[in-house]
Every structure is written in structure tokens, then in C-alpha cells.
């Protein structure tokens, strides 16, 4: 495995991405662009209430409306068993999964899907939705995690009981589960501390904010074959989820992944895909269902709001002696908040002997949460990285120096158990400290500088790649990972490196579930790592087969054929040499086509660390925070295509800036989100930002042949705390609630 820095021919270069021309000319086909003869258009009716019992649904007026071809409700779903299914992204209770597709007995959030219509035009489908009569018995909503945990809180589920470390409680509760991790002796650790800082933090509900709304087109053939064209982070997980929800065999379902317009974790769960299939079944016609932007905000999974309490102690010389965290995350309507990952990440940038972490997964009347870029870690890090900053400040130690004193390294144990392999935590802090930004003057009134670090563990999971060798010296690379951010290039480049051919000689294709081996979702920062690994393995197989062909051509033993720099040569006697390209032209004469395949499920994903530095200016009269300069340092292990690694870092940092300053779901007392549009859910525009200086550190991951670490998620972990720390530097106030919007700053400054 790769640990030393090597010279590569393809890796580390910046070729034009293979799908680039299609995407700059408008020719690339995304989910909503799919057209088909005879297509009907579907529209979902959603609950106007945050919490209500469904008394009755009458679809007769809608069914009679001219142009309507079919209406479905939860009654059209197979009876959902109350059992747990493993759908690749962790265990899921099927009853909950189905109820989130179309509510059966209760609606649990405003925007919860209740029924759906297929009609000859999207406008008719929308009009028909208003003709569906639903009678509700409105119930009081519970909209905040601490409120939901109270003993007398309204209950979302009569059958949900808290599981806590293997035990299940007797009484129903909104608390789905409690987890705890302990390391060492926290009491002893706090007793050894010279200084202890403890603070409470609150974070708002935020959305991934991908620009492309969810979409799905489904068609049932007369022979029972179901095809779904859609944008998704994982075609295979769509197949599994639809199969479970519809109780339909996976062998009869083909999912065709179209180009995907952003996901960030939000396009793993299915919403309208089973609905499109149900409508297609009912009407016998292909049906396209599109969400609009309000549907996306109200009907798909955001990432949780949370309440976080962090306590940390340190000695006078800056050594952290103990850390404690209490994490209560809103799951939304059904259990499954990412409190586990939050607990795994919260203290991971530090080497701490004594740690205790409690996590709670709590249901509330908001959309069921979904993964969002390092799910759970940003909520947790906002608390821990602010407390670390305060410890350093109180000890009068430079905050990056404080991180160097305590930085996690190989052999340290995370509070939840795993021991770190080779990691680049310290290296990111050192690079941040050495960056000119960190020492640039920043003394203006109401200007401040802040830093924060972050960790994300990254995942491996299954990937499959097939390589077909072409006679002109190129290869066709078949993969199952949908390409959200340039992974066709980063995967192709790894195969090209093995075969000594240019990146341009690889034609990568993302194909449907019938055409490639099982491949898990594009998520968990796993694609360049795991699918790249599969491409490496497939290319290795091609290389071996090509060596055999050269041996056959030269009538020598395979052991006497070498391959280097794209050239095969014979050693031991005969002086023969042939390039990969020329040998490709002779495949026909030497035994026919060459195909290589690689399937992996690698365990060595290798965690990623980031350290960010930010300068802000605070307008003390309006409470508005302007980001003046931003530097994001990150360990990429090995940057395959540095431009797209930088892009991930920049994009993640900017999503973090949005989360820090303005993004949040704003609810009224009835549980209606009052800002469900891009107008009022304020994501950063380019006028709100400076250039984002992305600095790549390379500490190769021993778990990958080229040292790759996932890069997609960790850049969203540090920004919130980094900005909070910069605001503190600017105005001397610790902000502990996200977003740090102008009105909250005005309040904190005592201006209102």
C-alpha cells in the first residue's frame, strides 16, 4: 500500500472532466430532462398540518377531473411490516419508510405526502390535487428537541420506546434512542484540570440546498418490468428501497441514474420514486413526478436542529484532560438522526484520555432528516471547537498551538472505540499556522479572525467497475457511482495511472443497475476512494491479461513480461517491446476481447481532517457579518484531480458559511416553515463571499493504493465554529446559536 510520495503521470494532474462538454453545452440529461412518448405528469398532495390524524381521504372529485388518469394514496401501498430492513445505508424500519412516502394514519410534518395524481399535464395534476378532500384531526405539534424530550410532550408515535444501550423502555417517548461512549475516567480527568469551560449550543434545521429538485419517471412494462429514471446518489439504493416499499423483486426493477444536480446526502432517501412507480402501475403509462422548491424544503430531509452541551478541561500548560458532550438531535418525523456520527467525530481532532459522550435521537414534527455532508459532525463541532477556542484563550495559548499540543495522531483512540491509523490532523494545523493568512495583519475595529478544526471518518462500502479494452488503445470504464462532482474523472484517472495511458484515453460511463455490479451510494466521501479502488483493481486485471497477451505474442513466459510507463517489454533474453496502445490493436489475433473487473468493499477509508482560518467584519450597528478572507486546509491523502478536490473544499466551506450566518428553517407556532423558498432560505450568493483559498495537504491513506482519502464531507465541519470564534475576536461575544444571523448578533450585543 501507498505511503511514500511518488511521481505519477496522471494522478495529480488536472485534465478536462469527461462529462464536461455535455454539461457546459446543456446537453447532459438530468432527471427532469427525461422525455418519453405518452408521458403523464404526477403531482403529490402534501399535508398542510405539522401533526394531525388522517380521518378520511376522498379522491373521487380529483379522479373525475378531465385529464386525470390516476390517483394513489397509502392504501395503494402493500401492507408495511413493522420490521427492520438493511438498505445499504443502515437499518430502516419499513413501516416508517412507507409512511414517509405516503402517510397512512397520521401526518407528522407540514409537507408530508398524503396522495398523488397522474394527469396529462403538470398543471392539471396540480389542479386535481386541490380536489382531493382530506379530513384531518389536528394535533399539537412538537417542534424542538428539548421540548420533545419532556415527559408531557405530545407523542408522534404511540409505539416508539427509547432504546438505551441495549435496553428498551416500557413507556412510549419521542426519544428513539440514547447512545453513550466512554473512554478513561472523565471525573478524574476533570479533577486534574486547571480550567474547565462548559457551554450550551443550539443549531437550526438546515437543508442541503441542491439546486435540482427531486424527480422520478417510472414505467411498468406489461411483463412487470419496472424502470425508474431519476437523479439519485445511488441507483442501487433506489432499487432496494423501492423493492422494499412496493414489496417487489429487485430483479424486476431497473434504475437508470440520470445526471444529478447536487445531493450532499439529500438524494439517498427516496420520496417520489415509489410514488411514480405506483402511478405508473395504476395508469399503465410512464409517469414523471417532479418536486418544486417548496416540496424540496418541506417534503425532503434536511439535517437536524440540535441542542449540544460541551464541557472540556485542560491543565495550565494546555493539555486537555477530559471532555464531555451531550448531543440531542432532531430526527424529524421518524427516528434516525445522525447523532451517532456526531458522537464519533466530536472530539476526534484531539488526543484526550478521558471522554464521555451521550447522544439522543429524538423525533419532532419536522421532515424526516436526511444525511447532509458529514451528517452530525458540524452540529457537534460547533460546540467543541468553540469550547476549545475558549480554553486556548483563557490559557493565553494560540488556538492553533493549542491544537498542536492536543492534536490526534496515529495510535490514539476515538471515544467510540476505533484507533486512528495514519492521519493528517496535525499536518492540517501546521499548514494553517504556516499560511500567510494566519499571520496577516487583522487589527481593524470589529474585524476578527477565527480558526477551527474538523474530522470526518469517511466510509468504504461496495463498488464495482468493469473495463472493456478498445482496439485503439482506449478503455471504456463502466461504473455505478453517480457523478455529482467530477468523479468520472477521478475514477478514470486511477485506471489510467495503472495502464500508463492518458486520462483522455478512458471513456467512463455511469450505467443502470442492470449493467454493472452492485455499487453503494455516492456518499460518505467514498466514491473517489472506493470506486477509484475498484477501477484500480479492474485496471490491474486488464494489465495482467494484457501481459498474458504480450507473452503469447512473443511466445515467452508471462513472468518474463514487464509493464511500465504504458510499455510492455520482455525481460530475460528476447528484446521485445510494445505499447499498451499497439497491443490493444492485436487483441483480435491474441485471443479476443480483454475485460477487467474490480469489486471492492474496502475497510481502510482513512479519516479526513480539516483546519480553517477565517477573517470577518462585524457591522456593530446592524449585526451583519461579512466574511473577508477564508483559508481551508485539508488532508486529501492523495489528490487525484486537485481542481475537484479544491472544489469540494471550497463548496463545503461555503455551505458551512451559509449554515453559520443565515441558513435555517424558520417555523411558526403551527409548525409551518415560513421561508420555504430560495428567496428566504438564504444560501450564500457569490456576492457574499471572498475567494476560498483551498490548501491541500497530502498524508497518504495507507488503506488505498494511491493514498486517497475521501474529501467531500469534512470541509463543512469547521466553518461554523471558525466564524463564531472570529466573531468573538471581533466583538468579544461568544455566539452559541446557529445561525449567527444579524438579529441574533444585535441581541447578543444588547442593541435590541
Amino acid at each position, binding site marked *: 500500500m501507498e505511503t511514500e510520495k511518488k511521481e505519477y503521470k496522471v494522478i495529480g494532474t488536472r485534465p478536462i472532466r469527461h462529462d464536461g462538454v455535455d454539461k457546459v453545452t446543456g446537453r447532459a440529461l438530468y432527471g427532469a430532462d427525461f422525455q418519453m412518448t405518452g408521458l403523464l405528469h404526477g403531482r403529490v398532495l402534501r399535508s398542510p398540518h405539522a401533526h394531525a390524524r388522517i380521518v378520511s381521504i376522498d379522491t373521487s372529485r380529483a379522479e373525475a377531473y378531465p385529464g386525470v388518469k390516476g390517483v394513489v394514496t397509502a392504501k395503494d401501498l402493500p401492507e408495511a411490516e413493522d420490521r427492520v430492513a438493511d438498505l445499504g445505508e443502515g437499518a430502516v424500519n419499513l413501516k416508517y419508510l412507507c409512511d414517509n412516502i405516503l402517510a397512512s394514519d397520521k401526518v407528522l410534518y407540514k409537507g408530508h405526502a398524503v396522495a398523488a395524481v397522474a394527469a396529462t399535464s403538470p398543471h392539471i395534476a396540480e389542479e386535481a390535487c386541490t380536489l382531493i378532500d382530506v379530513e384531518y384531526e389536528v394535533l399539537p405539534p412538537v417542534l424542538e428537541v428539548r421540548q420533545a424530550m419532556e415527559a408531557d410532550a405530545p407523542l408522534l408515535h404511540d409505539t416508539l420506546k427509547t432504546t438505551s444501550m441495549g435496553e428498551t423502555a416500557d413507556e412510549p417517548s419521542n426519544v428513539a434512542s440514547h447512545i453513550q461512549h466512554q473512554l478513561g475516567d472523565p471525573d478524574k480527568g476533570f479533577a486534574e484540570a486547571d480550567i474547565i469551560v462548559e457551554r450550551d449550543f443550539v443549531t437550526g434545521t438546515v437543508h442541503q440546498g441542491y439546486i435540482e429538485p427531486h424527480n422520478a419517471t417510472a414505467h411498468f412494462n406489461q411483463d412487470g418490468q419496472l424502470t425508474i429514471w431519476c437523479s439519485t446518489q445511488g441507483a442501487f439504493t433506489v432499487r432496494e428501497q423501492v423493492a422494499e416499499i412496493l414489496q417487489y423483486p429487485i430483479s424486476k426493477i431497473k434504475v437508470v441514474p440520470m445526471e444529478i444536480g447536487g445531493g450532499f446526502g439529500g438524494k439517498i432517501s427516496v420520496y417520489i420514486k415509489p410514488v411514480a412507480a405506483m402511478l405508473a402501475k395504476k395508469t399503465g403509462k410512464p409517469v414523471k413526478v417532479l418536486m418544486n422548491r417548496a416540496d424540496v424544503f418541506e417534503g425532503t430531509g434536511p439535517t437536524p436542529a440540535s441542542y449540544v452541551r460541551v464541557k472540556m478541561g485542560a491543565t495550565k500548560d494546555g493539555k486537555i484532560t477530559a471532555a464531555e458532550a451531550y448531543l440531542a438531535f432532531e430526527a424529524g418525523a421518524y427516528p434516525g438522526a445522525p447523532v451517532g456520527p456526531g458522537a464519533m467525530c466530536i472530539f476526534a481532532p484531539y488526543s484526550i484520555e478521558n471522554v464521555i459522550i451521550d447522544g439522543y435521537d429524538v423525533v419532532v414534527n419536522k421532515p424526516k432528516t436526511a444525511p447532509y455532508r458529514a451528517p452530525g459532525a458540524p452540529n457537534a463541532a460547533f460546540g467543541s471547537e468553540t469550547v476549545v477556542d475558549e480554553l486556548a484563550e483563557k490559557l493565553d495559548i494560540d488556538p492553533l498551538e493549542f491544537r498542536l499540543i492536543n492534536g490526534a495522531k496515529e495510535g490514539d483512540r476515538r471515544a467510540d472505540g476505533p484507533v486512528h491509523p495514519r492521519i493528517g490532523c496535525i499536518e492540517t494545523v501546521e499548514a494553517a499556522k504556516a499560511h500567510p493568512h494566519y499571520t496577516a495583519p487583522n487589527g481593524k475595529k470589529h474585524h476578527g479572525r477565527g480558526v477551527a478544526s474538523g474530522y470526518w471518518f469517511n466510509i468504504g462500502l461496495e463498488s464495482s467497475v468493469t473495463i472493456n479494452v478498445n482496439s485503439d488503445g482506449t478503455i471504456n470504464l463502466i461504473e455505478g457511482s453517480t457523478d455529482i462532482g467530477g468523479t468520472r474523472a477521478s475514477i478514470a484517472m486511477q485506471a489510467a495511472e495503472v495502464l500508463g495511458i492518458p486520462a483522455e484515453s478512458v471513456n467512463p460511463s455511469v450505467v443502470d443497475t442492470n449493467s454493472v455490479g452492485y455499487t453503494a451510494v455516492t456518499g460518505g466521501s467514498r466514491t473517489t476512494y472506493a470506486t477509484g479502488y475498484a477501477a484500480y483493481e479492474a485496471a490491474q486485471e486488464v494489465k495482467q491479461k494484457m501481459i498474458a497477451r504480450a507473452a503469447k505474442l512473443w511466445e515467452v513466459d508471462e513472468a518474463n513480461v514487464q509493464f511500465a510507463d504504458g510499455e510492455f517489454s520482455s525481460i530475460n533474453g528476447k528484446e521485445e517491446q510494445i505499447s499498451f496502445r499497439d497491443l490493444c490493436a492485436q487483441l483480435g489475433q491474441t485471443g479476443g476481447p480483454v475485460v477487467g473487473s474490480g469489486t471492492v468493499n474496502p475497510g481502510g477509508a482513512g479519516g479526513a481532517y480539516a483546519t480553517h482560518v477565517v477573517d470577518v467584519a462585524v457591522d456593530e450597528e446592524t449585526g451583519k457579518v461579512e466574511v473577508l478572507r477564508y483559508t481551508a486546509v485539508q488532508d486529501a491523502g492523495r489528490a487525484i484531480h486537485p481542481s475537484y478536490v479544491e472544489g469540494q473544499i471550497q463548496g463545503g466551506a461555503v455551505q458551512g458559511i451559509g449554515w453559520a450566518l*443565515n441558513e435555517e428553517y424558520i417555523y411558526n407556532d403551527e409548525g409551518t416553515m*415560513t421561508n420555504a423558498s430560495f428567496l*428566504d432560505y*438564504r444560501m450564500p450568493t457569490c456576492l457574499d463571499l471572498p475567494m476560498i483559498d483551498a490548501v491541500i495537504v497530502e498524508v497518504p491513506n495507507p488503506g488505498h493504493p494511491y493514498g486517497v482519502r475521501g474529501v467531500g464531507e469534512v470541509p463543512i465541519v469547521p466553518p461554523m465554529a471558525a466564524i463564531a470564534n472570529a466573531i468573538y475576536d471581533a466583538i468579544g461575544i461568544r455566539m452559541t446559536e446557529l445561525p449567527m444571523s*444579524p*438579529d441574533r448578533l*444585535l441581541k447578543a450585543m444588547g442593541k*435590541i
Partner: protein
Amino acid sequence: MQDFSYVSAQTVPEAVALLDEKGEKARILAGGTDLIVQVREARRDVDLMIDVKSIPEVNVLNYDANAGLTLGAAVECYKIYAVDAICDAYPGLVDATKIIGGTAIQGRAGVGGNLCNASPAADCIPPLIVLNATCVIAGPNGERELPVEQFCTAPGQTALEKGEMLVSMKIPAPASNSSSFYLRFIPRNEMDIAVVGAGASVTLDDAKQTIVSARIGLAAVAPTPLFAEEASALLAGREVSDAAIDEAAQAAQAIARPISDMRGTAEQRTHLVGVLTRRALNGAIQRVRDTA
């Protein structure tokens, strides 16, 4: 989206006749950046959209140093800030036209539409108020004129009677030693609706030390954009000073009756009225002083 009919009217009388016939369910379509969204989101019930962009009178953009500006109701924002003489004469209005939506919105949206939409947060209305604009209205009984501060009557409601349409706005030529300024507070730097907006116009004496007259207009702090009459009057004859400006700002705060919503809280808005009024007045004064 509900079904509706579309007519491209060629003359003012044609549009007026259609409005008169259809009543409430007919709406004038100019830039469409508010109307189309409202109908699409079922916030407005419309049977007929009357496109007025082919009518010559609503496309007039005519500035004369003596007569002032005639601004047709359908003139898009980008055409306004493309004219240097208008930028020089009415910088406060131009400030607003440059921050409405993004550049694509400014390609369609205009000042007239912003006025007729009658949002309490409309960016163009405070500048129109401080620039003493008059609305030219055509209806079944002919034309009438109305001071702009009387045009909006409630959120989304205007003084237009059945069958009436806004044809244009007239703004008098600026006095010497005068200028105007508009700014709003938004959490981002573009693409937001004003949490609070404040416009000011000032006329100074020849020494540029004393305020001869001033007008202050506010947005997003009441059911309609406001003319802060008392605050404006306070400044007449006063020497330019922080004290005078603070007094005006406080008087402006006193008339604010803001609500709390997803864009801001009432307390935040009241506070911002003071901040923005000061900044608008100082901005307008600076512009006068920057002009030779």
C-alpha cells in the same frame, strides 16, 4: 398554476376597457416577476393577464433637466440605470433599481410594477416618495394624478379603482444642491427582500452646510411604505450635524409599526430604521457634497 387568458394590449384605452370589464380578476402584466410567481403559487386569482409592454405610453423614459423625468410604468430597471443623466439626477431611485432581484430580474422588473405590487418592502417606493413622484393613472373616466405616497393603501392594495391602470410616474427635476440615497438592510448582499429600507433626499444651501429641505421614506416597517413627514420636517433649516440626523432618525423610528416575520423581528426592524435613516441621510448629503 391556474389557467388564464393572455392579451397583449396595444393602447391604454384597450387595456383600461379590459380591466373595467373583468374587474379584480384581470391584472396588468409588465415585468411579471411578482405577478407570475403570485399566480403560480396560488396567492392571486387571475383570469386575464393584460400585457402592456406594447403600449407606447408605458414605455416612455424621458428626462429633461427642467421638466424632470417621465417614467413609463413598464420600463425595466436596467434601462433606467443605463441612462447617465438619470443616474446623476435621481441616484436614490437608481440605487433601488440596481438592487431589485438579480440582474436577470432587472431585465424584466420595473419601478411601476414594484409600485403596483404594493409590497410594504418595495425598494423603489421610498425613493419615489423622497423624490416627490406623482403617479399618472388612466381609467374609464380619463386620467388622474396622485402623489406616490398615497398610492399604496395596504399590503398588495393600491388606490387604483376598477378599470384603472398606472401609466407612468413623473418626478420633478432635482433642485440644485440636492441629491438622494436609498439603502436597505438584508442579511445577504443581494437577492433578499428588504428587512428595512430607507430612502432620503436632501437639498443643501450653497455652502452645503445647512439642510434646506429633506424627505425620508421607509420600507418594510408598516403595512405600506411610509413618508416620514415629521422626521423630514425636523431637518429643514438645520445645520448638517450628527445631532440633527439622530433626531430625524429617532422621529422616523417613532412612526415605524413593524411586524415580526421570517425576514426579521419587530425589534430588529425598529432598531434598523434608526441606523438606515442615518445612513440614507448621510449618503444623500455626501452625494451633494461630492458634486461640484
